[in-house]
């Protein structure tokens, strides 16, 4: 028997989630844009103080006022690492490394995946079937291992990391978009356009593509989060960007050896930065998904 629908709650929660996600993502993008110009220390140049812990939290307000208004030299907010590099400056500047790699990989895989998805959904023939099997093949390997091997083979440059991530994430967009196109192609307005004599490529471009974008757009927020995690992960195992590039994963890896000695700060702060960013993108994606589903 028909059950009365559940009242749709959670609208306010989704709104809050959206604001938090958008706030974090906005902050990270801002840091990526202006980071190198606002940090107190050069992220590549070692200072004399090695493995200095961060100042106690209680002193932060005083230190902040001293730095901003009394011309005192900036403290090492997050301490310094074993080579004497300022952890605070490097954590901020690393936002650019991680976000550029993740966003570029996401944009590329989005473009390639969605385009191929429209083609594979709209034209179903031997070539597009072969394409789907190829994407099955790509997706059947563990993502992290594949990325590691690809970067190891191609060389540890930004460009190669971006390409490796693109290759891994494009099948996700391909599949999502193709599924959407498969239902779209049965829709009446597609047939109406065919009956009007509109050429296939034009139908694909003007009717199918814009109407098939929604799931891929929602996915892209989630993918950026994963891409950041993967970029950091690759660097952590030594298959990512080269030191001393400021990059969160690399910083965590460099600091990891010191943790047993009690030096927790060189790893903790970049770790928080990764978590926060990934959470921000995930929250944004989840909120968008909820909004579109409702």
């Amino acid at each position, binding site marked *: *028997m028909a059950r009365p629908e559940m009242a749709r709650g959670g609208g306010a929660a989704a709104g809050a989630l959206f604001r938090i996600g958008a706030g974090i993502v906005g902050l990270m993008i801002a840091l990526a844009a202006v980071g190198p110009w606002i940090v107190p220390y050069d992220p590549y140049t070692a200072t004399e103080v090695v493995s200095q812990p961060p100042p106690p939290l209680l002193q932060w307000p005083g230190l902040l006022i001293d730095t901003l208004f009394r011309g005192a030299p900036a403290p090492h907010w997050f301490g310094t690492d074993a080579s004497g590099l300022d952890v605070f400056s490097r954590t901020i500047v690393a936002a650019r490394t991680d976000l550029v790699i993740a966003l570029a990989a996401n944009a590329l895989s989005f473009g390639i995946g969605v385009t191929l998805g429209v083609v594979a959904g709209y034209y179903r023939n031997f070539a597009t079937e072969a394409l789907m099997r190829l994407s099955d093949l790509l997706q059947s390997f563990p993502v992290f291992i594949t990325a590691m091997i690809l970067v190891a083979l191609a060389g540890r440059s930004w460009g190669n990391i971006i390409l490796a991530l693109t290759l891994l994430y494009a099948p996700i967009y391909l599949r999502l978009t193709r599924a959407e196109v498969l239902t779209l192609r049965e*829709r*009446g307005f597609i*047939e*109406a356009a065919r*009956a*009007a*004599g*509109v050429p296939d490529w034009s139908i694909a471009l003007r009717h199918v593509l814009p*109407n098939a974008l929604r799931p891929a757009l929602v996915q892209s927020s989630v993918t950026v989060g994963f891409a950041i995690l993967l970029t950091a992960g690759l660097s952590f195992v030594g298959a990512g960007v080269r030191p001393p590039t400021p990059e969160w994963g690399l910083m965590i890896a460099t600091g990891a050896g010191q943790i047993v000695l009690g030096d927790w700060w060189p790893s903790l702060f970049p770790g928080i930065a990764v978590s926060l960013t990934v959470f921000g993108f995930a929250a944004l994606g989840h909120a968008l998904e909820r909004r579109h589903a409702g």
Partner: protein
Amino acid sequence: MLAETASTVLAARGLTVASPGGRAVVDGADLDLRSGEIVGLTGPSGAGKSTLAFALLGLARAPFSLAGGQVLIGGRDLLSLPEEAARAVRGRDIGLIVQNPRAALHPMLDVGRQIGRIWRTHTGGDARAARDRAVEMLRLVGINDPDRRAAAFAHELSGGMAQRVLIAAALAADPAILVADEPTSGLDVTVQAQFLDMMWRAAKDRGTAMLLVTQEPGVLANYCDRVLTMEAGRIVADRPTRAHFAGRAVTARATIRSLPEAAAAPVVTAVSLSKRFPLRDGKAVHAVDDLTLSIRPGEAVGLVGESGSGKTTAGRCLLRLIEPTAGRVTLAGRDLSTLSAGDLRRLRAKAQIVRQDPFDSFDPRWRLGRSLREPLDVHRPDMDAVAKAARVAELIRLVGCEPAVAEARPRDLAAGMLQRLAIARALATEPAFIVLDEPTSVLTPDARREIVALLRRLQDELGVAYLFISHDLTTVAALCHRVVVMYLGQIVEEGTTAAIFDDPRHPYTRALIAAHLDEDPANRRVDRPQPDRVEGEIPSPIDLPTGCYLASRCPMALDRCGTERQALAPLAGDRTVRCWRAAELDTDNEVRHAL
């Protein structure tokens, strides 16, 4: 009449359902249901009919809530009972049948379990007895082989079958009151008639009181004793059925159109058109089987038959929107099957299609003006933007709308208005031929009449030819000059509208016409014998019968029918029939209904 003497089994007083904003969706409704009486509840979409029907069970669909009033069943107010007690009343005293039956069935339980469970809930019987009860109920609602069907799951049932299961479930605990919310929307006429006959008999034999929510005048006229009319949340009229229909002319019969001049060459011709969809196991679905048909300029040809008879596929093949497996289609003197892709696209200006669901027919992201301009962009490179805009405005006016709707998006308009614009778009390139694929079936009866009037006017003004695919015979009779009846991919009868409606010869055509519900309470289906019923539902087009396709359902079938295929043969009176007994079934035979 029974209704006058029978006792009131349900009384609603001041029943009010409110939206979260405090607006009354159902506003102080008073109604009585008496035993053995079928009460129709009608009114425009959004009047609150379904909401009221639900409220009678003490239920409200979110976000609405029950805001006041009483529902008295057996002297107790259902609305003031604790939830536990109210639940005991639902199902035992009052049953509900909803539309979209397949969605209302549990997908993971076989239907026998579902029916039995309702009975067990209210009687406390054991599982064994519940199964027997379920089988008994399935037999009662006319399901063949109920033992085996009780083990079926929702997805294994057709829409008609699922609807019967639902009524079996509703009747399982033998409730004194049944509430049915548009129970036959989306069903074929034959299945609709079988189903409503059964409901009617249940009400009359068992003394069940029934509330039937429907917008269909035919259903009201044929099955209801009393009609309640709702508008904007209020019951505005409560009349005996005859009074409800008093003053309405039954005009369909009078408007049958005469054929246009026969001299002109056909605008579209199909010869031996077939379409088979291959399946994985080497079998194939025979959607269209050797169809030959021609339509002249200015002529409207109706294509009728149950769902699954291949009507829609035939229409698509005529436009080569899907590739026919065999056969030839000639459009405006050119053979479509030999055209190159480019030539075919250019010729598409001459033949258009209007589909069933207007909301699906327009790109939801585009403004309607842009959608209407699309065919012009393809076929009229000579027109500039200004000329195109003027043409779009002209088209919109042609279908009786204001040019300002060009700025609207599909979701902003009502279905009837949007369907007019779909017709306008089809006319943009001045086609000679339009396939109308059930263009009225999702519309309200009023919008339906308006669309038919519009199509007639456009045809008279523009001389365009129509293939009108529909299962609604009233609309077909009002619009078409000629009617083609299809069954399992084959044409079984073809003739003028008058010939088909006044003197149907093929047993299938006769069954279709007999299942049709006239909007006339003086000529009720339930008051006359039904010798022309075809039983059950259309067989699968995969394993076709060896003989006549209808033989298994045909009331006229002889042994020979089961083994011999029939040919489409001409018969006196401007028609062809695929039945070797057609000549026997002439006009004075028992069933003739004025339409």
